[in-house]
């Protein structure tokens, strides 16, 4: 790890000013991605600005939404009574991610900004990584791709966005609130991430120095049922091979409202408007669910190592939707 200076921020304005002024300065929150990548030599900041003591923690309810402070930890958010009551699939996704020890450190802001798990990205001994070293190529495409993405990929990068909680968050049209030197702005999570294209090193629309201060999460409508299902090799403590987060309102056997997103398959948390279109105003049947899953995975691009994930992702989504429909019945 390269030597760095540690600064504990006294207020958000100071933090934003410090980081914005210097491309070699980064934020430090829970540290579970940042320190890991610094140890690997992938991230090499000269200065870290610790934002964990800023008053950015906690969940407040506005009636139709909750506002989650950026440094709220995953465990804290999972324990929030409104989340438990009104956003159960967020709680499910949170508790299926990482381990309790990591969830006690990892913050919601940091979770959204977590970096790819790709071992080609994380190992500087690998020369070809467009995300780490733009223009150098992508070793993952010809390597072991089982844990990589099949949606939103490009010829330059197939790295997965591995967050669980971002899946229900993106399904809910959450808004990321950030503060920059030019003031605050809100960014819909659906527009927050950038697909790799030919610039995989640019992962989101944040400008350097912009600080996530909160995530605003709309509540599910009354009568909605939600579920997050995660499929992986181990029963616990592993990233998803595939996952699905969905919320449905079903009235008299008809789906009146649907929100669907997928994990484990996309270069970003994958909102599936295609699946939602199929589901909306359709009968809550297995056939509908299958059609939705087919629509969700249309356009998937696979490699030999990821070919099975198309079918698995469809089955994961179908099971998720069936579970929701079954729970309602």
């Amino acid at each position, binding site marked *: *790890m*390269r*030597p760095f200076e540690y600064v504990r921020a006294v207020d958000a304005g100071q933090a934003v000013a410090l980081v914005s002024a210097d491309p070699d300065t980064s934020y430090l929150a829970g540290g579970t991605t940042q320190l890991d990548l610094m140890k690997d*030599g992938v991230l090499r900041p000269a200065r870290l600005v610790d934002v964990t003591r800023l008053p950015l923690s906690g969940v407040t309810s506005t009636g139709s939404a909750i506002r989650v402070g950026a440094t709220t930890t995953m465990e804290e958010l999972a324990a929030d009574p409104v989340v438990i009551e009104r956003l159960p699939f967020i709680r499910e996704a949170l508790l299926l991610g990482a381990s309790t020890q990591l969830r006690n450190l990892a913050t919601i802001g940091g979770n959204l900004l977590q970096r790819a*798990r790709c*071992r*080609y990205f994380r*190992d*500087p*001994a*690998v020369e070809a990584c467009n995300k780490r070293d733009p223009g150098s190529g992508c*070793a993952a495409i*010809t*390597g*072991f791709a*089982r*844990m990589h993405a099949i949606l939103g990929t490009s010829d330059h990068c197939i790295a997965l966005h591995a967050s669980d909680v971002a899946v229900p968050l993106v399904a809910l049209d959450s808004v990321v609130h950030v503060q920059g030197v030019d003031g605050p702005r809100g960014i819909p999570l659906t527009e927050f991430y950038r697909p790799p294209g030919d610039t995989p090193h640019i992962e989101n629309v944040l400008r350097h120095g912009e600080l996530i201060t909160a995530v605003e999460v709309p509540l599910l409508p009354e009568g909605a049922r939600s579920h997050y299902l995660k*499929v992986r*090799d*181990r*029963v*616990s*403590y*592993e*990233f998803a*091979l595939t996952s699905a987060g969905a919320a449905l309102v079903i009235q008299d056997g008809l789906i009146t409202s649907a929100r669907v997103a997928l994990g484990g398959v996309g270069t970003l948390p994958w909102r599936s408007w295609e699946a939602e279109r199929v589901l909306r105003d359709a009968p809550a049947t297995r056939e509908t669910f299958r059609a939705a899953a087919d629509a969700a995975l249309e356009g998937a691009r696979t490699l030999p190592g990821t070919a*099975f994930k198309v*079918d*698995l992702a469809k*089955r*994961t989504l179908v*099971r998720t939707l069936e579970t929701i429909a079954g729970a309602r019945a």
Partner: protein
Amino acid sequence: MTAIIGAGIDRVDAALKVTGSANYPNDVAYPGLAHAALVRATVAAGRIRAIDTSAAEAAPGVLTVITHLTAPRLDRGPMTLLGPSPPAPIQDDRILHHGQHVAIVVADSPERARHAASLVRVEYETVKALLDLDDPRAEVTANPWNLDTDRGDVAAGFAAADVVVEGTYTTPDNTNNPLGLMSTVAIWHGDSLTVHDSTQWPHNVRTSLAKIFKVPESGIRVLAPYVGGGFGAGLRMWPHVILTVLAAREVGRPVKLVLTRPEMFTSVGHRPHSVMRFKLGATRDGRLMAIDADGVSPVAMEDDDYEPVSLCAATAYGCSHVRTRDRQVRLNIPCPGSMRAPAEGQGNFGLESAVDELAHALGMDPLELRLRNFAQADPESGLPWSSNALRECYRLGAERFGWSRRTPQPGSMREGRWLIGYGMAAVSYPAYQVPCQARASLHRDGSAFVRSAATDIGTGTYTVMTQLAAESLGLDVSRVRFDLGDSDMPYSPQAGGSGLTGALGNAVHLACRRLVGDVLDLVRDDANSPLRGMKLDDVTVDQGRVHRVGIPEQGEAYSDILARHGVEELSADGRSIPPRSEDLGMAVAGAFGAKFVEVRVDPDLGLLRVARVVSAIDGGRVLNEKTATSQIVGGTVGGISQAMFEDTATDRETGRIANATFGDYLIPVNADIPDIDVIFVGEPDPATPIGTKGVGEVGLVGLAAAIANAVHHATGRRIRTLPITIDQLML
């Protein structure tokens, strides 16, 4: 026998381990301790064209950077019980595998050492690496261990068979990955040397370092009182140990090296992948007529490893016609090494899967097929087994498991959306024992201290040897201390091959018996002693006393004898010699086992869960039910891990290991493991005085096949490639 043996007493080292006080090699600190970090090759084959250490040397706190350009010439370590030592590191510019050590950096803090290591710039001249067993350029050795078997007439056997099955089975590279990062701390004092090391064999480290650094063995002390697991990774003295010792000499300070987790994948061995073919022929009524097996595994370019994967077919069943063939292929890979149940772990998966396929082809219960082919005598020598309770393992294991509830048709058992499968496998683990020594001392207060330079890598050695010594000396366990992990103690072989408990136990037993004999010598002419003139066979020991057999009143306490004779301490040595089948007229048997597994498969999502395991084990005499059970449970978890998770992935182009972290290389977590039922059957083995057979590895073997067989029963799908993963099970 007193109740000391067999009783499930708590580990004698439990208090240290639950308080975090057990001192592992990387817990050691010294004043002025410096820290080392390694630089590893980023190509798999070629030469170092240039190595620039200037930035590293200029970095704050750096004490030295040693490369092949600056390192002294070092001899290769000696020939050992386990074969040749690994070649000495950084002796020339050649690169033979990705991850090979090319430099060691020493600094005054671990952070500075690691950062400086990242500043070493290496330019390589690369050549196309040999990474594939099928590469026509690779050197192939046939029959590398001279263990190929030819028994009877295999062609005739198959000709007489009604049913023949044949399959190719493959197992991947697995990495030992003990949780403890392997660590070395080296301190020179002039020409003498103290080394703390994560070794399973302190004497080997001592002997090897003496030869390599040309100093007398008597000046070297190797300490390993606690080791954070081994599973074979600590059997050999690997190059990083040499580098640390070299660095400590160079900087004139104590130096500590802690391998990183990624380095654990390339520095301390691994279970090599294998491709195996098993062909079995049987009569309609299930009599095995012929077995033909072959296997191939890779080895490093200039090192050695023992993995005769097909050999298990030679002795597992009573079959007259058997042929086994093994081959080894030299590749540009980190050297493989023993990993818990080397060769057996791979071979048994192939053999016991094939037996299941044969049972299916015959329409016969797989348990029944195995019973019909039980080897009444050792198939190779024809000698009767010293002990073999495999049939009791079958019977009691099946009973406990409820095997009779199995309906034979694949896919015929289900619960909700879960398909249920019952599978089983058998294990005949080879016997292994080598000479070992121990010393027992009796103190004036009648307490005893017994020691040997063995290690306890979690196996329970401290505890069971304390029990054995207590029994042999007639003392309460609280009056006995057993110590180990110090090369200044009497010679011990490695903790490996399921052989240490037998070798060490017999040495401890002998030392203790001799000690009692020495006590009798003290009173031989002692008119005040009721034991005067008695021989060892005339007496028994109990509650700190020696007394005439059957007459407790005619005896006296150790403490009284020693006090009366003014003896402060009495010591005796014991040396165990492995039993030999030809001397005994019996085939010295290893452990046997029968494994029964229930799996659940969600065929939609491809999920596989192990729901229940029953392991019935004939391990001979069980010294401590608690620790022996833990050995079997732990082995079982290792077997589940081999079956479902472990797969060291090597990039085909570069030879880099692509998943060298605990986040990417999967081993089971708590939620993956069901409760595991262990039954011990059988009797003490008569081949040695203490009657144990070793239970360190038999627990692992058989699980992979039993799980694959259960998956076939659940789904009708035969998986011949490990690990069994979701993508293979989506039906």
